[in-house]
């Protein structure tokens, strides 16, 4: 037992509360945000190191023993995701002051930012299903705060849909927890896992699992539950889009991974087969959405959906390659999605429009921006030697090995179209005659490019330096596939 496990929740919470008091002093807020996020990042580095050397850190909050109290489980998977979250957050913290947030910064933008991180981190760490619900509420409420911030009419309209759909899924969530509690008499995830195993997931349990799946699938934006996503993600400014795109949907898919590897794993031929279907449909409809628009922010937003599909595919195949592929892809996508949202934010800012048909020739003014986008396109499509490749390789291998041929073909075609959808931005936005720029003034991108480039190097490193990462991911996958380890580490006595 170590209090280390609670730090990733408490640090951002304290940061958020501190920043409320500096609300009107924008400069101090900015600096404090950067300092706090760097501290969180360093702490999460330390935690990862600690977890990977000494094993899972369990914290029984308030010293109420498992399974009665709320247990925080900082295992290898959670710690890596915490690290990635803090990495993305730090980059956003350095990007935000230049992002043209204007007045928003003095209306609790930074507190919301940290509340969001609190909720996300909590969702990754908690070992308690009801507590997971609470952290979902925290991150959703923070996201409502961010999404309505300084809202015009359009923004409020889209926020309302976002809010109502999420509210519905929260209601369903808490109801499903109640059902599950009625059957197994506990909300501790390890104990639920143990008890579901004991009765071999018989009777109504699978149906309750499916209800939970739909709750998480709504948050994760899987087919056909993602309606709220595209329009609501593009309305706010790029920092918010990046945080949403990188973190919110990932919490949903992470929860699916957890719940359907720890608890509901005794009817794989039903539940996980469903996932493969949903994964394929998400890929197809997501990429169709991305191709349907000339709004470059929407292109990126739609691209969230096939990525989640890929992650779900690995969970569906439920092999060691599939799961490690999912985890690799999850981390990869958290990084590259924020890179893309931030990049597109810069592009929209310098081009003065998000309509691709009105752009052209930007490379003459902004070569670095163009090449960053170019590389990102290949990262996203899973072209080697970047991070997406490793994940995709493992996912497709897992799918092949479990005999799912059709989904691999869908996955490969989707990859091509993902590349096409981003490449369109490069070809039509950046290439072209200098005259296409018209009387566009050259704007300063100071402070915007460096954080994004910094983040993108991690995508490259995760691919080129896969040897330093993959063996760990592989061992995490082995750990995920054996729920007994988790159960024993929580309910040790």
């Amino acid at each position, binding site marked *: 037992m170590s209090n280390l496990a609670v730090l990733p929740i408490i640090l951002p919470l304290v940061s958020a509360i501190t920043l409320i008091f500096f609300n009107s002093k924008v400069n101090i807020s900015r600096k404090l945000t950067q300092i706090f996020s760097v501290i969180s990042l360093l702490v999460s580095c330390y935690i990862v190191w600690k977890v990977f050397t000494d094993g899972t850190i369990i914290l029984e909050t308030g010293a109420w023993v498992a399974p009665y109290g709320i247990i925080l489980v900082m295992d290898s998977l959670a710690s890596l995701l915490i690290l990635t979250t803090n990495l993305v957050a730090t980059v956003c913290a350095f990007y935000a002051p230049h992002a043209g947030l204007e007045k928003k910064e003095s209306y609790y933008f930074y507190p919301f930012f940290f509340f969001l991180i609190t909720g996300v981190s909590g969702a990754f760490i908690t070992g308690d299903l009801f507590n997971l619900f609470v952290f979902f509420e925290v991150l959703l409420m923070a996201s409502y705060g961010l999404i309505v911030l300084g809202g015009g009419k359009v923004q409020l309209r889209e926020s309302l849909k976002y809010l109502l759909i999420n509210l519905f899924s929260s209601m369903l969530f808490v109801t499903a927890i109640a059902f599950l509690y009625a059957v197994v008499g506990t909300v501790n995830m390890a104990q639920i896992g143990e008890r579901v195993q004991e009765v071999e997931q018989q*009777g109504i349990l699978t149906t309750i699992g499916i209800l939970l799946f739909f709750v998480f699938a709504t948050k994760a934006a899987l087919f056909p539950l993602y309606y709220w996503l595209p329009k609501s993600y593009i309305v706010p400014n790029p920092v918010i889009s990046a945080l949403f795109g990188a973190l919110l949907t990932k919490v949903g898919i992470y929860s699916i991974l957890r719940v359907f590897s720890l608890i509901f794993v005794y009817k794989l031929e039903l539940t996980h087969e469903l996932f493969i279907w949903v994964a394929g449909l998400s890929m197809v409809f997501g990429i169709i959405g991305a191709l349907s628009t000339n709004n470059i922010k929407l292109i990126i937003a739609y691209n969230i959906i096939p990525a989640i599909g890929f992650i779900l595919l690995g969970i569906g195949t439920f092999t060691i390659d599939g799961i490690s592929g999912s985890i690799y892809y999850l981390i990869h996508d958290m990084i590259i999605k924020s890179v893309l949202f931030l990049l597109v934010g810069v592009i929209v800012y310098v081009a003065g429009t998000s309509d691709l048909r009105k752009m052209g020739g930007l490379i003459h003014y902004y070569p670095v921006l163009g090449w960053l986008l170019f590389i990102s396109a290949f990262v996203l499509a899973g072209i080697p030697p970047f991070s997406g490749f490793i994940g995709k390789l493992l996912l497709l291998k897992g799918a092949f090995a479990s005999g799912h041929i059709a989904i691999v073909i869908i996955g*490969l075609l989707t990859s091509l179209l993902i590349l096409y959808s981003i490449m369109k931005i490069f070809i039509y936005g950046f290439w072209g005659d200098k005259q296409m720029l018209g009387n566009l003034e050259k704007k300063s991108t100071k402070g915007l490019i460096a954080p994004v480039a910094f983040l993108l190097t991690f995508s490259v490193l995760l691919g080129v330096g896969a040897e330093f990462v993959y063996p760990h991911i592989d061992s995490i996958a082995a750990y995920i596939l054996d729920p007994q380890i988790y159960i024993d580490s929580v309910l040790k006595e």
Partner: protein
Amino acid sequence: MIFAVLIPLIIACFIPLLSKLKEKIHTGIFVLFVPLSIFLYFVQFLGRDFNPIRHTYNWIPSLGINFDFYLDGLSLLFALLISGIGALVVLYSIFYLSKQERLGSFYVYLLMFMTAMLGVVLSDNIFVLYTFWELTSISSFLLIGYWHFKERSRYGALKSMLITIFGGLSMFGGFILLWVVTGTTSIQEMINQVDVILDSSYLPLILGFILLGAFTKSAQFPFHIWLPDAMEAPTPVSAYLHSATMVKAGLFLIARFSSIFSGSEWFFIVVSLVGIITLCWGSYMAVRQTDLKAILAFSTISQLGMIMAMLGFGTTAAVFAAIFHILNHATFKGSLFMVAGIIDHETGTRDIRKLGGLITFLPITATLALFGTFSMAAVPLPFLNGFYSKELFFDATLHLDSTTFLAQAIPYLAVFGSIFTFVYSMYFFFGVFTGPKQLDKLPKKPHEAPIGMLLSPIVLVAGVILIGLFPNIVNAPFLLHAAQAVNPEVEFHKVAFWHGFNTPLKMSLIVIAIGIILFVTRKKWSKVYTILPGKLSLNKVYDQIVEKLDVISGAITRSYMTGSLKNYMSIILATTLIVSFVFMFITNGFTLEYDYLADVTILEVSVVIIMIIAAVATIFTNHNIAAILVLGVVGYGVAILFVVYRAPDIALTQFVIETVTVALFLLCFYHLPKLRKSTDSAGTKMTNLFISVGFGALMTMVAISAHSSNWFESISDYFVETSYKLGGGHNIVNVILVDMRGLDTLFEIAVLGIAALAIIGLIKLKKDKGAQ
């Protein structure tokens, strides 16, 4: 060896620094040393007693992805082509590209390509091969789009990328399957497991995936359409990537895997058929072109088809001929591309209809073109290398291992394709250099190219002649090793000019005879193109696909992304509903036990009935206040139920919430719009009714089943026991809230705080904006 592969990429990183000097020294001069030194490095391996060399450098050993460089005869042939032609192309580009161009980018892309292509041919590891393979597509994309201010360049770049990366991904799929089937990532080790692969039920899939990769890259019918559009690239690039090297990567892939796949009958059928169709279609279409580079592009397609067909034949003679032709094609086609570039450079046009009689202005170029085109046409002269490999090709078509109908037809198709090869070769040469001069149509006054620009094609033509005169100097030390790497049974055979008056020679003579007739009368029969291809155009198919992709995806997306929350909710609810019911049904989830039920009193029944009536009534009220009051009844009903079940604190909370909600609503009632009568059609209403009733039924059934599946002790007993002992409070709910599950409470409070801040932000920021 890793150094030889990576050095272009490393140098590429320094190019941006060098291009600052470009006003003084052409960047190409620095770059020239790179391919030259790589060429010299690989030359040392030439020789009769060459044995394959392997170097391994770890990259991701835990996934079996390592830089396994394997240099055998086949890779050596390609490595020499890549570096040798590369050096010549860089030399040529120094004179072709003026210093005003973005030389830095050009050479960075070119060097990137060099590394990529060397990587493709030297990698024994499938995934490293794939990595380099995609890198060749990417650098090709950038080079085609080099003059990206031109619409056609952007179009061509995108087209080539979509088609080649499509193939690349397909190949990747095939590689993963091979990995799954054999458990290894090394091609050589896979060759040792031929039987495992051939016996695998995945074989057709593997074959299909990998062939798609090869066919797209090597511009085989029907994927050839990207190559003519790739001609938008600067001519040195066309000579290098789109004729001599990159487009041969597909051939390389087939050659590499042919010792595995040649055991499959399908391999012969598909590869030969596609190859021979490509040969015929490419040469047939080349005659129709008017742009010099387009003629050469279709000619390249056709020649690639011919080599592909030979690899498909798989016989020892065919394999040797294929290898031989890979080399020969690189020499004569490379020189012809450079000639086309010179003509373009010196006259300002590549339109063959405007050109003519240039022999007097560009005598040296004309001479070079003469050798190039005649070698391509396989005119039987002892100093033209093209003739030798063409003879071997004809010979190979006559000795196939197969007796299928296809095998019978191949010799005729070979002759057919070769006739058109002859025609377009003549068309190219005589159309440009003889005939009436049309100087007034030329943008520039034509004159001979500077010697620097002529140097590279001269070297290549020298190669044509040298190999023509002494074909055996490249045979034993070079070609034989390459051919043996493809098919180990290939034995040394002297290549000779004269074999007697045999069938292949007769075929050649038929080709020339009909070719001359067709060439002379070409104006008369050119109408045939209005019938075939006529309006059929694969380009249109591609354009349609790309365009329709946008249109259809737009239509699909708009059809469900209506922006209507009601639609979204009904789809979300309906999906949840249907899937959950299906799962409940197949897992036999519904259970009903009467053991744990309490007695039902008249009070509960009447409360519930009132609630139901109220809930139904909300749907039918058309007035805001009425709706909220009726809804309030439901809430208070729940509160009463809590009282009945002896949960006074929860009941109290519920009462407070209901009261506050109703009060709040009444406060803002004034600002709300009036409820409108629903205008939905009866069908929609029915669907909505079905969904809502269904969802209610689902929740009820799950709740009943959950309650009936009381298999475990609840942890709540522990709370009862320890509430006072450990928590120090008699009120269990309080102890749970502030102690046992204090973390939940802390963050629920945080949620309230965030909500408050959000509301402040919402109101105040809007006010601020209003003030402005």
